[in-house]
C-alpha cells in the first residue's frame, strides 16, 4: 500500500512539474482554455459525471465501444477534447483528421453531450487522476476489503462447531447421570429397607401417569398453542412480502452482465434515481445507445426492435411493489441521503435475473431510519439542525432524530 502511494505521489509530482513546464512554454496561448485541476472536489464531480454518462461506452483501461481513456489528456489537446465531446459529428464532418481516424476505427459516432466547459474539464481531471493510478490497484482493492469484513465477528463455521460440541457434552452428561442412577438403585436394593423406603426405591417410572398428569397436559397445551400462534403470526407477517421475488422478464436482461461485468453505472439507465421519486425503467432509446452496435443480432435485442417497430412498449414485470399507501422517493435516499443502491436492492451486480432483495416491510424501513446517520455533510439545509442536535446529544444525528419515523413522511 505504502509503495503504491509513494509511487503515485512521485508520478503526480513528475506530471505536475511537466505540466508547469508546458504551461511555461506555451505561455498565454492556453490561458483562455479550461485547465485541468487536481482539486478533489472537481475530480469527484468529474467522477460522478463520468460514471453517469461515459461508462456505457468507455473504460479507463479497456477498450469498450469507444477507446480506453487512459492518458487521453496526454494524447489529445485540451481544446480538441472540449470541442469533440460537445459535438463529435460536427468535427467528423469538418474533416478533422483525428476524429475521422477514430470513426474509421470504431465505426460509431460518439453521442454529443451538452456539457459546459467546466463539466468537461472536471471529467478530464478525473480521467487524468485515474490514469495516474497504476493499473493493478483497481483489481487489488476489493480483495483487501473482503478480508477486513471477514475478520470482524466470529466466523459462522466456528459457531456451528461450538454448538455441536455443546450438544455432545450435554448428551454425555445425560448418559453419565443415567448410569449413576442405575448403580445407586442397584446398591439400595441390596440393602435392608423398610416398606416405605422400598416403595420409593422400587418405584418405576410410570410414563402413562406422567402423560396423563395435569401439569404435563398443561405444558403440552401451552407449547402447542404457542407454536401454532407463532407460526400463524409469522405467516401473517409474510403476507404480501415478496422477498426473493424474481419473475421472468419479457427480455432476458442480465444485471450481472451490464452492472457487474461491464460496470455500467446504475444511473446511466435508471435516469430518475437522483431527481425523481421513480428510478425509472429505461426506455428503448437508452438501450439503443449501445445496442445499435453491440450484439445487434441477438434475439433478445430483436425484441427491443420489435417493440419500436410495432409501437408497443415493453411490459416489464414489476419486481419491487410498495403498497399504494406508502410514498417512497428515490432521490431523497440516493441524492440527499447518499445511500448506495445496493443497500436496498442487494447484490444486483451478481443477479442474472433481478430479484427483490429486501423484504420492503414497514419494520425494515423503520429499522433503517433508526440506525442510519443523517447525511448532513455539506448540506446547508441541515446546518442549524445539526447544531441544535449536538447541543442535546453526543450521538450522531440519525434519520429518526429528524422526524424520520413520523407517519406523514411516507403516508399521505
Amino acid at each position, binding site marked *: 500500500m505504502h509503495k503504491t502511494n509513494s509511487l503515485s505521489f512521485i508520478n503526480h509530482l513528475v506530471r505536475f512539474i511537466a505540466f508547469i513546464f508546458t504551461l511555461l512554454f506555451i505561455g498565454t496561448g492556453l490561458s483562455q482554455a479550461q485547465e485541468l485541476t487536481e482539486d478533489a472536489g472537481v475530480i469527484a464531480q468529474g467522477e460522478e459525471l463520468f460514471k453517469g454518462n461515459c461508462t456505457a461506452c468507455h473504460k479507463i483501461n479497456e477498450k469498450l465501444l469507444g477507446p480506453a481513456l487512459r492518458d487521453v489528456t496526454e494524447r489529445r489537446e485540451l481544446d480538441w477534447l472540449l470541442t469533440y465531446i460537445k459535438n463529435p459529428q460536427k468535427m467528423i464532418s469538418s474533416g478533422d483528421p483525428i476524429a475521422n481516424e477514430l470513426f474509421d476505427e470504431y465505426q460509431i459516432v460518439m453521442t454529443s453531450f451538452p456539457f459546459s466547459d467546466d463539466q468537461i474539464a472536471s471529467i478530464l481531471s478525473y480521467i487524468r487522476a485515474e490514469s495516474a493510478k497504476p493499473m493493478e490497484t483497481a483489481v487489488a482493492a476489493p480483495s483487501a476489503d473482503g478480508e477486513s469484513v471477514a475478520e470482524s465477528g466470529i466466523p459462522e463455521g466456528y459457531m456451528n462447531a461450538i454448538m455441536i460440541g455443546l450438544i455432545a457434552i450435554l448428551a454425555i452428561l445425560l448418559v453419565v447421570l443415567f448410569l449413576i442412577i442405575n448403580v445407586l438403585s442397584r446398591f439400595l436394593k441390596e440393602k435392608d429397607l423398610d416398606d416405605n423406603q422400598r416403595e420409593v426405591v422400587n418405584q418405576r417410572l410410570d410414563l402413562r401417569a406422567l402423560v396423563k398428569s395435569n401439569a404435563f397436559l398443561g405444558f403440552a397445551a401451552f407449547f402447542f398453542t404457542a407454536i401454532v400462534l407463532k407460526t400463524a403470526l409469522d*405467516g*401473517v407477517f*409474510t*403476507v*404480501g412480502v*415478496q422477498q426473493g421475488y424474481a*419473475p421472468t422478464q419479457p427480455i432476458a436482461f442480465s444485471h450481472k452482465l451490464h452492472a457487474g461485468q461491464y460496470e455500467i453505472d446504475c444511473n446511466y439507465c435508471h*435516469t*430518475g434515481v437522483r*431527481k*425523481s*421519486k*421513480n428510478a*425509472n*425503467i*429505461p*426506455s*428503448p*432509446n*437508452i438501450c439503443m445507445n449501445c445496442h445499435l452496435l453491440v450484439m445487434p443480432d441477438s434475439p433478445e435485442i430483436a425484441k427491443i426492435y420489435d*417493440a*419500436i417497430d410495432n*409501437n*408497443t*412498449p*415493453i*411490459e*416489464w*414485470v*414489476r419486481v419491487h*411493489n410498495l*403498497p*399504494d*399507501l*406508502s*410514498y417512497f*422517493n428515490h*432521490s*431523497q435516499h440516493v*441524492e*440527499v441521503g447518499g445511500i448506495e443502491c445496493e443497500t436496498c436492492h442487494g447484490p444486483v451486480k451478481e443477479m442474472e435475473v433481478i430479484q427483490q432483495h429486501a423484504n420492503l416491510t414497514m419494520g425494515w424501513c423503520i429499522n433503517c431510519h433508526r440506525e442510519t446517520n443523517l447525511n448532513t455533510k*455539506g*448540506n*446547508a*439545509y441541515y446546518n*442549524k*439542525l445539526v447544531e*441544535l442536535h449536538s447541543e442535546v446529544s453526543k450521538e450522531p444525528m440519525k434519520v429518526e432524530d*429528524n*422526524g424520520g419515523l*413520523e*407517519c*406523514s*413522511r411516507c*403516508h*399521505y
Partner: protein
Amino acid sequence: MEKPKKQYWKGLEQLSNDPSFVEKEKNEFPEMLPTGNEDSGASRRDFLKMMGFSVAAASLAACEAPIRKAIPYLNKPLEIDPGVPVYYASSYMNGGDYCSVVVKTREGRPIKIEGNDLSAVSGGGTTAQVEASVLSLYDKQRFQNPTNGGSPVTWEDLDKEVISQLESISSGGGQIRIVANSIYSPSTLAAIEEFKVKYPGTEVVTYDSISNYGIAKANELSFGQAGVPLYDFSQAKTIVSFDADFLGTWINPVLYSKQFSKTRKLGPNNKEMSRLYSFESNMSVTGANADYRTAIKPSEQGAYVIGLYNAIAGKAGAESISGGSSSEIINKAAEGLWRSQGASIVVSGSNDPNVQVIINGINSLLGNYGTTIDLNKSVNFRSGNDEQMEKFVADLGAGSVGGVIFYNCNPIYDYPKGDAIASNLSKASLTLSTSDRLDETSGAVTYIAPDHHYLESWNDAEPVAGHFSLSQPTISNLFNTRQGQESILTWAGNESSYYDFMKANWEATHFANQLAESELQVFWDKTLHDGVYMPATDTQAGAIAFAGDLNLAAANIPSGGSGLELVITSTVAVGAGNQANNPWLQEMPDPVTKACWENYLTISQPHAAELGIVMSEGNTQKVDLSVGGTTLNVPVVVQPGQASGTIGLALGYGRRNAGLVADELGVDANPLVGIVNGTRSYAVSGASISVTGESYQVAHTQTHQTHMDRHYVVQESTLGEYQKDAAAGRHFPQITTLKGKKQPYDISLWKGHTYTNHHWGMVIDMNSCTGCGTCTIACQAENNVPVVGKEEVLNRREMTWLRIDRYYSSDADSSDLKGLEKAAENPEVTFQPMMCQHCNNAPCETVCPVAATTHSTEGLNQMVYNRCIGTRYCANNCPYKVRRFNWFKYHDNSQFSTNLSMSNDLGKMVLNPDVTVRSRGVMEKCTMCVQRIQYGKLEAKKEKRRVNDGEVVTACAKACPTDAITFGDLLDSKSKVSKMLKIEK
C-alpha cells in the same frame, strides 16, 4: 364569560331555534344510518360478520400477489421524467370566460390548474370553474370521433362532404353563419378571414352565454366606442355596485377580486380600506362583502341610479336629470364617491344600455375614466353582440341561412330563443358543430367536427386589448378530435396546421413589431414559457369626453315592474352551465346559499311566510313558477337578504343533453331571459308563484357541523374600532383558577411540542376573503377528494376538506326577537374558511385508540389512513368539525357514478399520484398539502439550501384570487406568515 356582542347564525333554522334542528345539531353524525336496507332486519350486520370471516380466510389462502407491470416510455420525451411534475403556461377560454393559467402535468397528463402570476388580465388567481376544468378534459361525454348524422366518419369523409356543401351554398349565393361565443383569438379570427375569402357569404355571429352587451352599447352611445372596459378596483376607494356581482360572477371576477382585496389589506402601515356600497336583489358574493348593502327590486334600479347621478351632479354643479329617487343611503354613497373623485367606481350589472349610459355619466362626473376605468382596454372575452344574434335567429327562422357552423357554443341551451334555433335548424342545408362534447346544440346538428379540449390545443388570445396570451397542448388529444381552427382552415382550403398558421401569424405581427429579441425561436419560446405577452405601447389610459344623452337614456328606462320580479343570475360554481357535467362544480356549495346539485328559487323570509313555506335543513317545497307562458316546477330556498317583491333563479341548470352528471339537475332558466330592445334582460317582471304543497329536500351544506351556544365563532370589528385598537374584536380567552385568571396555554395538561426544523402554519386574512370558494375546488383537485352526490350531501356526508362557513349576523340583541327578524331580512354576512387547524395539542390525537392521528415535529396533525380503524372518536372530539369519514368506498363504485374522477379509467387520470385515494371506513382531513411540503423540502435538500419562503404553497393558498391565505414556515423569521403573526401579537 362575557356576553357576545353579536348574534351569529348559519341558517334560518338556527336563528329560529327550530326544535328538530336543535335536537339534530347536537349530534356529530345524523342518527339514521342510511345503509339502504334497513327493512331487511339485521342482514347488514350478519353480512358483515360473514364477510369479515371469509375475507380473512380468503386473504390468508391467497397470498400470491398479482403480477404488476412496469411499462416504460417507448421513446422517453426529453422534458418528462416520471415522478417529476412539468408545468406549462396556457390560457383557459370557455364561453365568455378567460383566465391565464399554469398547468401542472405528471407523466404527460394534466392534473392541476393554477393561476399565472405574470398575467395582468387574471392576476394570478383562478376561479372554481377554472380549477375544475381539468376534470372536464377527462369526461367520457366528449366526442371520440367526427360524426355525420350521429354515426362516426373519418375526417377525410367529413371534410369532403362539408366542403362540397359549403361550396354549393356559396356558389348559389347562399348565406353561411359562424355562430360563436366571443372570439378573441387573433389567429382564429385570421383563420376565419381565410374561410370568408373562400365562402363570401359568411358572417360571424358572436354572443356570450351571459351577456354584457348593454355596457358595450352604452359605451358606444356615451363615447362613440363600443366595448366593455377594464376596471381597476385596486385604485378605488369608494365602489358602488348596482347588482354587478364583480366578486363572484360579473365579467372578470378573478382579476376584480384580486384588485378589490388589495384595498382591504389592513396592517400597521395601512389602516384605511375601500367602501363598497351594494344595491341588489339577490344576495350575491359582492353583496355579502359589501359594507353597505341595500336590497332593491330590479325595477327600482333605474330610479336609484338616476338618484345617485343627481346627488353627484348637485355636488359637481352639473345639470340634474328628471326622475330618480333619493334616499339616505344614496346620499351617503354620493358623498363617499365625491370625496374619492378619480378613485372610485360605479358599476351596474344591468344589461339595459340606458342604465349603463347614466352609470357612465356618473363615472364621468367623478373623473374615473383614465384612472379606474380604461376605455382603451376593452374586455374582448365579453364582446358578444346580442343584436347580431337576434338577427341570426330571425334569419334562420326566415330560411335565409344556408349553412350554420356552431363554433364551440351551445345557443340551443344558453340562448333565450334556443327553442326557435332548434326548430328552425332544418331550414339550413348544412348544420355543423365543433363542440368537443355532447350538448343540446351538437345533439341537433348533422355534422360534428369535435374540437380539442383547451388543454389539448394550440391557441392564442387577446383577452383584453393590448394583452396577449398563448395556449399550448399539455397532453396529446385523447380522442380522434381536431383543433377547431384547423377544421376551419381545412375547409377554407389551407392545408397548414393551426400551429404553423398561428406561429406565422405571430411572426408577422408581434415578432416583427418588437426589438427585444432578434431570433423568432427565442421570442416564441419566451412567450410560450410566460404564457402572456404584452407589447410595449405608449397609449395612455383611455379618457374620452362623455357625450351621452342622459335625459333620453333616463326617459328610456322602463319604469316600474309589475307583480313579482324574477332576477336571473348565475352561480359561482356552475356559471352559465358550460361545464355543468363537472361533478366538482355541481357539489360545490354556492357561497351564499350553501346549496348544491341544483338550482332553486330564492325567496325572502316574509314572502315564504306569506306562502306558508317553512324551510328547515333543506326541507322545503316545490312551487310552480310562471313567467310569461312558461311554467317551471322548482324548489324554494328561503334566502335572508332577498329583496322583497323579488325572487331569484340561477342559469346553468336544467341541462337536457350534457351527460351523466348534469342531465335533469334543476330547471333551465334560459327561456325566461327577456330580450328588450335587442339586448338580453335578466330581470323579468310579472312572475307568479303557486304553491303545490309538494315537499322536497334541497342539499345544503349550510347547517352541517353547526354549533349554537359557541360565542366568538367569528371575531370581527368595525374599521373605526380597529383604527383605535388593533386588537378590537379579538377574544382572548382566559381560564379562572384558584390563583386568578390564567392564559389557557399556561395550564395545559400536555407538555406541548418543540419544533426545530420547520413549523408550518397558515394565516387567513378574513378581511380579504370574499367567500368565492375557489380554494375548495383547488383542494378537491389536489387531494383527490371524492364527490359523494346529492343523496349523501343530504346525509351530511360531503367529503370536502376545506369548507367556507357563511355566517349571517346582526347587531340586534339575542333577546330582541323583532330586531333579529328584521336583521334576517338583510343581515350582515361573514365568511370563514374552515379546515383542519393542526392544533398544537389536538383533541383528536388524544382520543384515537390506534394512534392513527399524531403530531409531527413540523407542527402538522398527521392522519394515517392505513392505520385508521374508523372509530370516529377523533371527529367527535374535533372542535372545528373538519374531519371527514369515508362512509362508503367512493371509487370504482357504480353507486357513486357521478364521482367521475374515480369511477372510470379516463376520469382517474386526473388524480394526484402523490395522494392516496382513501378507502371505506377511514377518517380523512386537511393535511396542509403535506405532499407539497415534502416536495418543497426535498427540492431544497437536493440544492443544499433551506426552503425559501413562498416555495411551499398549499393548493388553497395558490388558488386564492384575493391572497387571503398565506402559508409558510413559522420558524423562518423572514417568512411572510411569521411576519403577519408578529403584527397580530
